[in-house]
């Protein structure tokens, strides 16, 4: 089912979802960036804004049109909604010489993710595989995921650090959404809306709309074709797994260690990185304690600490662990790729380390052919 929507129909989407008492989380401008937050009206979308991204740099600028989605991805990802930054897992009460443990019930309010980019749809699929696709499902993630409703938006304005075309995750979403929009700015400002699920079709049916003509379909196709062409291929993933595994001691890791801050920004901004740690804390009386799960990163020393100390003490070893997991061993472990080419690790690295450049450098001077 597909239809053409006028820009005003976005308000009808928000109204309809809020009428159902769902949370609507969408891109919005805050703190000089486009972040994801709960919105009450489509007017809170970043209307007429674009982002200018470079390694270690992000700037908002005004566009000369009223585009609702005229930007790429920002500092946050939908991971904040699904694999929340901090979740209490367990409470334990001491009672008369014994104790009682209560797991926190995994509950989540129905939430619409409004404005999910194709690379982010791909990232959600990858996290689904990692967190609920194996023998043990993460209860909290599962509850949140079950209650999510995905309104994807295809990309027409990739940022300089975007490389979804290289990773084959965009700029057009093929599946994994309830509803997908393509914003057409050529000619009359309009959206091509296509339902991906029955629930998506049900929502679409409630919106003021026009039938989609062939001209609308080809205009929408042109949007993503142009975006793909603009990005080009900047990371050759065909042989990257074997390349990295064949060059474990490549001198480039010394070079990147000179720049890497081990600050964790890349991993925490990454929409697929899933590492967490648990903190145990107890109350003053000593009768109650609780366990909290928090985002963690392979770039911290404490992350790999075990009896006898940490296993990845050097910056070389931490960067290598991340790069190789992301682009090589992830595939072996989960049978999916680990990187979706969203470019966040490049933009949000405080010193602008570019994963594409690091791979190119290793490729250019590899010790051994894969």
């Amino acid at each position, binding site marked *: 089912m597909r239809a053409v929507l006028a820009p005003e129909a976005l308000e009808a989407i928000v109204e309809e979802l809020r009428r159902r008492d769902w949370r609507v989380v969408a891109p919005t401008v805050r703190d000089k960036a486009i972040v994801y937050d709960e919105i009450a009206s489509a007017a809170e979308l970043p209307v007429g804004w674009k982002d200018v991204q470079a390694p270690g740099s992000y*700037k908002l600028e005004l566009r000369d049109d009223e585009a609702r989605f005229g930007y790429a991805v920002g500092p946050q990802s939908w991971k*904040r909604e699904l694999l929340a930054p901090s979740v209490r897992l367990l409470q334990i009460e001491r009672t008369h010489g014994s104790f009682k443990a209560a797991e926190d019930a995994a509950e989540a309010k129905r939430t619409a993710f409004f404005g999910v980019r194709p690379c982010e749809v791909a990232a959600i699929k990858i996290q689904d595989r990692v967190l609920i696709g194996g023998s043990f499902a993460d209860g909290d993630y599962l509850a949140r995921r079950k209650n999510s409703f995905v309104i994807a938006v295809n990309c027409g304005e990739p940022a300089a650090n975007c490389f979804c075309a290289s990773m084959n995750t965009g700029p057009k979403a093929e599946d994994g959404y309830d509803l997908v929009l393509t914003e057409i700015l050529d000619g009359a400002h309009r959206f091509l809306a296509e339902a991906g699920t029955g629930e998506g079709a049900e929502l679409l049916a409630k919106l003021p709309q026009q039938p989609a003509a062939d001209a609308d379909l080809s205009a929408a196709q042109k949007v993503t074709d142009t975006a793909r062409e603009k990005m080009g291929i900047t990371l050759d993933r065909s042989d990257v797994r074997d390349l990295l595994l064949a060059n474990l001691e490549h001198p480039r890791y010394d070079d990147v260690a000179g720049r890497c801050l081990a600050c964790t920004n890349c991993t925490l901004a990454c929409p697929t990185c899933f590492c967490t740690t648990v903190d145990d804390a107890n109350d003053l009386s000593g009768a109650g304690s609780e366990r909290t799960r928090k985002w963690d990163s392979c770039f911290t020393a404490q992350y790999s600490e075990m009896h006898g100390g940490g296993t990845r003490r050097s910056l070389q070893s931490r960067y290598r662990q991340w790069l190789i997991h992301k682009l090589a061993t992830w595939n072996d472990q989960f049978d999916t790729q680990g990187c979706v080419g969203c470019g966040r690790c490049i933009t949000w690295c405080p010193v602008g380390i570019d994963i594409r450049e690091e791979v190119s450098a290793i490729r250019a001077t590899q010790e051994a052919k894969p």
Partner: protein
Amino acid sequence: MGPTIAIWKFSSCDGCQLTLLDCEDELLGILGRVQIAYFPEATRAEIEGPWDVSLVEGSVTTPEEAKRIKEIREKSGLVVAIGACATAGGIQALRNWANVKEFASIVYAHPEYLETLETSTPHSDHIDVDLELQGCPISKTQLVDTLLALLSGRRPNVPTSAVCTECKQRQTPCVQVLGTPCLGPVTQAGCGAICPSYARGCYGCFGPKETTNTVSLAKRWSDMGVAEDALLRAFRTFNGYKPAFREESARHG
């Protein structure tokens, strides 16, 4: 009767000790489980040593202090250094790059009455310290958690990672990437990333984190237009004498 805790002051502003009094909601609960052996900011009562735990605030700046911390070490089960003064030498460690006699001659009418050391140093330069809580001032949350951890025999939750982890926890967009130089990537977490949440760069009041690549961050700041003297000052504040920051400021001096 709980374990005895003594709170000692060296050269400092008292702000970190006062963090304990600031605990308000938790304070009575804590006092119910420990015996305060020495804490002039709160009580005149004293219990003689040895003590189970000594919280030590302030840096070592006089011969008397250098002797006293050794005595405290001998009589204490655990010594926890609290705050930038006790763990790095504090802001008063700026004297370590200057001539103390010259300072004294300007400030005091009779500098000959003073008996002071040439340097302000952290306790770890004088004794073995069991745990350091960094920060100017320390975090109340970390202090309470540390006391509870000691009481229940678990490990305190004191992350050694960057402030960046806390910005990400609270979903604050990276201010450095948005154009404001920030020390967060080389500074230890614990403050809750307060400054970046107000769009300010971190100024390093929690001191260096583990594995500190200050050279790379300073180079980025240079590229962003930060002058050499500003770089020197950025690394030479409350935690300026902590080796990672000390070495970086020396590169810009």
